[in-house]
């Protein structure tokens, strides 16, 4: 699903060069649930930015769902983000002016789907996460857990192949954390690949695999790509 080989990312200022990712290689199979861990400054943010096509990289290759995304223009990257990737953020990142329905609607609007199909998808996604009764609530009228569930509904409505989650339970209490992790496991169970950055061992334990980053590199040996075999996790199990 996601294969990076020798990817490099360098942040430059007038005085200093910071190698955020150096010869970074990782392979995530379709349907896998991977937890990414590491200390601050280890490159987790940069990895997620690059993986989500939110940032460019300078060397190496990156295959997303079999497609080389190294030289795509802005329109092409936006289309891939819209159609193949779903983001779940630590701070939920709902748009405060928009109600629940409209927040879930955002990625569907950019996909250009007709109104009827968008409505069906939104209602189905909100039904899955149990918020059908809150369609016209603003984010400020929801609890943190409910906001994160709306964010997940936003992802579900788009039906992406890959979900990139950034500390999705970082702002939630333990009860809500369990609810969200259950939900993510359920989504992963339907075949959606999930890459989740987390500091929490409890969260990481829910993943099929944990990888650790240090100084912009993967330190686990089993994360190195095996390009010859691209088998879905479910099939491998």
């Amino acid at each position, binding site marked *: 699903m996601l294969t990076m080989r020798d990817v490099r990312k360098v942040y430059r200022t007038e005085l200093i060069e910071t190698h955020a990712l150096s010869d970074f290689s990782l392979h995530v199979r379709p349907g896998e649930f991977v937890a990414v861990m590491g200390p601050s400054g280890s490159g*987790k943010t940069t990895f997620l930015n690059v993986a989500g096509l939110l940032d460019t990289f300078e060397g190496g290759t990156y295959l997303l769902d079999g497609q080389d995304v190294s030289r795509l223009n802005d329109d092409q990257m936006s289309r891939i*983000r819209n159609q193949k990737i779903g983001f779940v953020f630590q701070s939920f990142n709902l748009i405060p002016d928009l109600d629940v329905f409209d927040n879930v609607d955002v*990625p569907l*609007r950019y*996909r250009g789907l007709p109104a009827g199909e968008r409505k069906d998808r939104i209602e189905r996604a909100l039904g899955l996460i149990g918020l059908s009764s809150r369609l016209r609530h603003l984010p400020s009228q929801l609890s943190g857990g409910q906001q994160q569930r709306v964010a997940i509904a936003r992802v579900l409505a788009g039906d992406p192949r890959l979900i990139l989650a950034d500390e999705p339970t970082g702002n939630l209490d333990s009860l809500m954390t369990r609810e969200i992790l259950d939900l993510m496991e359920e989504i992963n169970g339907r075949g959606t690949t999930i890459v989740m950055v987390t500091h929490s061992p409890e969260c990481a334990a829910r993943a099929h695999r944990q990888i650790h980053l240090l100084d912009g590199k993967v330190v686990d040996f089993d994360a190195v790509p095996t390009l010859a075999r691209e088998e879905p996790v479910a099939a491998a199990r």
Partner: protein
Amino acid sequence: MLLYHLRIAFKSLRRSLGFSAVVVGGIALGIGVASLFATIRHALAKDPIPQKSGVLYNVRLDNWDPAKPHPNKAGIPPQVTFRDMTEIMKSDIPVHQAGMFKANLYVFPEPGSGRPTRTLIRMCFADFFPMFDAPFQYGSGWDRQADQGPEPVIVLGEEMNDKLFGGQNSVGKTVRIEDREFRVVGVLKPWRPSIKFYDITQQQLQAPEQVFMPLGWLRPMQIRTSGNSDGWKSPPQPGFEGVLVSETTWLQMWVELPDEAARQRYVDFLGAYVAEQKKQGRFPRPLRVEVTRLMTLMDEQGVTPPELTAMVVVSLLFLAVCALNLTGLLLAKFLARAPEIGVRRALGASRKHVFLQHVVECELVGVLGGALGILLSLAAVGFANGWVKALFNRSDLIQFDATMAGYALGLSLLAGLVAGVYPAWRVCRIPPAVHLKLQ
């Protein structure tokens, strides 16, 4: 997608009402000022008789002093002499033709219903009415035979008919002017061309006269012009007859020529006439006749003062300054929204989507500002018309018509674009990752 962006823009404006009021107010002020000056200029510059201006020609003949040209910009008298008018009216080339001038005579109301008043009267020929499409409410103009008599007939404007006859159909009734009785043959509908185009030698902003009388009455009643007259030579004899045979120019001469061929034939006719007069010792300057289209004449005579055009330019610059000042405010607002833009980018918005979203918001600001500006402009136009009424006794000169509404709307959209295109471009270039805090 456009409607979606419009909805987002409305939400954005509602989110910060105070800020939105400042931005919309800035555009409104600029649009109001720019629209006002453009409307005033439009009132003067627009074609006062668009359905016919292409076939209406003003006639000028250079009978001026051999030592120096006429002192106006064109170097030719703007009017013609009575004797020349009388002679060239004999041509059968024009479809319609009329010499004319403005007189100031006493009009007497019905006995016991008021005092006689000095009234501006247009002395003209029967062709005046069909040539200038003067609209009739009752009756019609007089016929050409009435010009010859002359017959004691008049046409009233609707205001004079209101004043003398309470707005009733007065055709067949009589009106005393000076010491003679005249029969009303027609009453005009309200007729308010933007300028008094048939006489732009003086006070062209005045409304048309309210009484029209056959020009032939000037001799029996010894009626003199109350408009401009230009002369370079003393009359050959004293008294009223001396004026009629003098080289003094005081009549406006208009002809209707259906096409360029007719115009050329008429120019040739005038050239032949002047050449003949030269043999009699008149027209000492090089032969020059001018047969000029109405709109060309308006440009030439400076009906639209250049100062007014300059004010329109200055008001547009003012609008540009307003718009550019708002650029900074909009940039600050948009940059403060960077996290939301980061989210939208992550969810699939391209730079084009983000750019369009913000341009739509700027255009919404422009349109709202434009609507408010139009209201300001309408109020200012009302004030300006009050001022014009005090000067020229008409309150309808400056009109905010559909053309000006389109102009104001176009300016609003342009102002919104000028104010917003840079902030929108800047905000769409923000790298999405910076504001997402993915860690």
